[in-house]
């Protein structure tokens, strides 16, 4: 539980959401769980940030939403990465990599 939303860099949450959707469509709860798992519980996503971010990404046309049924038979809204979303993910991954190299250099870690 090291991070709260204030500590997340602007735009990082978008990247995490896109990344978590890379392989399969998922509902909001699933995304939150996936991010937590992938970060090995170092990151939790607050719902107050998650849903506005999802709607924003949908507005941008990077993901799209469809109603479906979850594994345990609950009706839920599933989000899918669109082709432009996929491109956006690549671009953001690249710029994140560049940024982290740069920051590491500044901190003298590289």
């Amino acid at each position, binding site marked *: 539980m090291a991070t709260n939303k204030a500590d997340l860099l602007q735009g990082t949450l978008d990247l995490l959401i896109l990344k978590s959707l890379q392989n399969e469509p998922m*509902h*909001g*709860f*699933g995304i939150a*769980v996936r991010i937590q798992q992938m970060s090995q519980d170092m990151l939790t996503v*607050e*719902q*107050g940030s998650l*849903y*506005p971010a999802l*709607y*924003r990404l949908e*507005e941008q046309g990077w993901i799209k939403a469809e109603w479906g049924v*979850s594994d*345990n038979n*609950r*009706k*839920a*809204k599933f989000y899918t990465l669109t082709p432009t979303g996929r491109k956006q993910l690549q671009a953001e991954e690249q710029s994140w990599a560049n940024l982290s190299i740069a920051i590491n250099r500044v901190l003298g870690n590289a």
Partner: protein
Amino acid sequence: MQWLRKIAALFRRGKLDAEMAEEMRAHIELQTDRNIAAGMDPDEARYAALRQFGNVGSIQEQAREVRRLRWLEDFFQDFRHGARLLLKNPGFTAAAVAVLALGIGANTAVFNLVHTLLLAPATYARPSEIFRIQSQDVRNPNKTRDFSYPAYRDIRKGNAIFSDALASALTIVGVGEKGDTRRAAAAVVSANYFSVLGVAPVQGRGFRPEEEKPGAASPVVIVSHLFWRKHGGDPAMLGSTIAINSRPFTVIGIMPEGFTGTTSLFFTELWLPLGVFDLVANRGGAGAGNLLADPARADLEILGRLKPGMTVAAAAPALRALTTSLTESYPIQQKDQVLVMAPPSRFASLSNDRAVAWVGALLMGMAAIVLLVACLNLTNMLLARGTARRKEIALRLALGGGRLRIVRQLLTEGLLLALLGGGGGLLLARWSSQLLMASLGRMIPIDLVLATEPQPALYAAAAGFCLFGTLVFALGPALKLSRGDVVTHLKEHAGEDVVRRRWNFLPRHPLVSLQIALSLALLTSAALFMRSALAAETGAAETGLRAKNLFLIELDAALGGHDQVQAQELYRRLGERLAALPGVESAGVATDVPLSGLDFEKSVQRAGEPKSASSAKWTGVGEDYFKAAGLPLLRGRAFTVVEATQSGSPPVVIVNEELAKHLWPEGDALGRYLQLGEDGTAADPVAGDRNHVAAAYEVVGIVPATRHSLFESNPDMGFYLPYARGFQSHVFFHVKLAALLPGGETATADQLRGLVGEVDSTLPVLSLKSCAEMLDDNIQIWIVRFGAVLFSAFGGLALSIAVVGVYGVVAYSVARRSREIGIRMALGARPDAVQKMILGEGAVMLGGGVGLGLVLALGIGKVVSSLLYRVGALDPLAFVAAPGLLAVATFLACWLPARRATKVDPMVVLRAG
């Protein structure tokens, strides 16, 4: 595109919100399932899931922010809120909308007029390239004239300025058969007219070059879209024949909708080729030979389209070269003449449009004042109402509502009012434009094109006035009301008048004073114009003719297809029959009547003395004219029958006193000789003019001067030619009766009309009126009256709006101050003292307004003085009547609420507090 989606989302808001709630519920259920799987019991699992999720409402709100257009949504919310408020106060709403509708309506109507006259784009292609060439008198630059057909040919061929130039002459023709003849404006034009203007017929063809040649009497006509529609809009009209001046013409083309030729006030309905000029032009001397080929004429207006890249400055040397070559070709006509170039006039007769532009600007200014008064009034109403809402606003501010948000809401309410007012204004504008057209239409026999249907420009103007109005009347109160001293407003009695005023001697309501001032300015100009109209009525009666029992029959034999010889014979026979009618004292023909607006001018000189030449107005008259018109012969005799009917008889002339004094100041004019010179003006020359240049006319009589124009200060110099020498096909029969026939004016007119029909059934009677009626329908009087009506309407509007405003403000103030008044009365103030206090405050308001208003009125009086008829800008009557009327109305508006103040019962009011 994103905002489009957002706007779409706005309309699906309910559905989207439901979906979002559903999604979040799913989230919480999924979390609950997971918690149960982790070993919690169901209730605990659900509670934990809810806790983990956080505040659902606030998250939904955050998510919503992403999706929506905040300002637009707020706007709709404000709009609904505003509409509800307006519906709750129907009285206030009705008053506000009515006031605004009057203000916006006046502005839109005036804008419509000004737009049509001055601003609407010409109906032909690229108007900025079109210029008019005229010939200017070197000795008198105010005198310009147009050209003959041969001169047009030379100008068209020999100029380096225009890519091409057209010639056109406006005329009035009779359309239809016999009794059904109506008059229409026609343009007789060169074959390239349509190609130069860049407009082609939508159906049929244009004119061919051979149809424009002199003598080519090829009877073809191209009609306007409106003409086509008026005659049934039948596609079969192409190729059919219509009767023009009783001759059959084949319709070969129909022009596109909206094309009105080169003038903007009235439609040209018909276009005819120059080749038929002699048949239809209705110029003096019709039938006297080939007018079109005559180089002495000046009938054709020449318009040219500039060559690509040519400018007015660059055209100057080419214009000089053209002047030189034209003077070589026409040494007589072009002597002392120079060619000038200017943008074409939008009106048929004015050589420049500046006077009209000035009047237009004045009208717009007056209308703007009405709108301003209306806006000030609304500002007051909103302020008064807003004071009652202070508590509500303070509450909203206290609860964290942004000031901007509150201002925006108040502005939206204002906009709503303005839109309602604007809608009403458009209706009013449409109605008043129709009224204007109906009134003008009575005056002018041809079609006027003042669009009464709202056009895009009109909508734009109305919308603009609405926006302007909103800003003016709603912004101030909105800013003032939202300036929250929250605590004070919440504490005090809602709506009480607690404004601390630093300058007590100033009017309590400066906006009301300003309204009064502006209204007074308009009222005073209304009074000036009304005085002017009354003076004009008197002025119009002073024509020099004896109007009692005098009837005028307006005829034009040319419209019935008669040439000069036939027309003279026809008029001679008609004169005899009229004179033989029982009750008729005498009947005489004349080519003009006083104040007709027609001006036939010629230069006259003492025989053999070219230096004495000056311009005078002439009229061709029959032998009995002077007797019938009641114009006494001061010296000498009237024309004889032979002189009046035979153009070969010895040349004689009758002059008016002014001309006699001018030519022979030292002695008697009778028996002297004068010569008629070349006609340099645009007016029509006399038949066979050039043959008579040398002929000396003997002065056989002297008559008093008559007035040709309402606006002339002194009677013009004028003279009379025997009808045979001064022929015009367009005449006025003057019929003098001993007394009206039994049945009055209508019966008399009917009998006269019947007689004309008996003499020649093909002869259209253009008008048949008593002399008094004729003068009453005069266009110049109409203009003066129109000014009076318009200004009275403006003044009346402003006055009533201001009085409503005064009443509203005083009544409201009394209502709000009932506590204060109650206390005063409880402490011993007598009712009449209270009444005096309220009236006194009204008087201060009125005094301030009248003071400022008189200053404004003086300014406006100076500006409009040139439009006034025999009334000074400082007319004492106007300057007493207008403030008097205003003061009485305002006093009443104060007195009613003041009386109510005395009815305040201290006990009731103080307990209510």
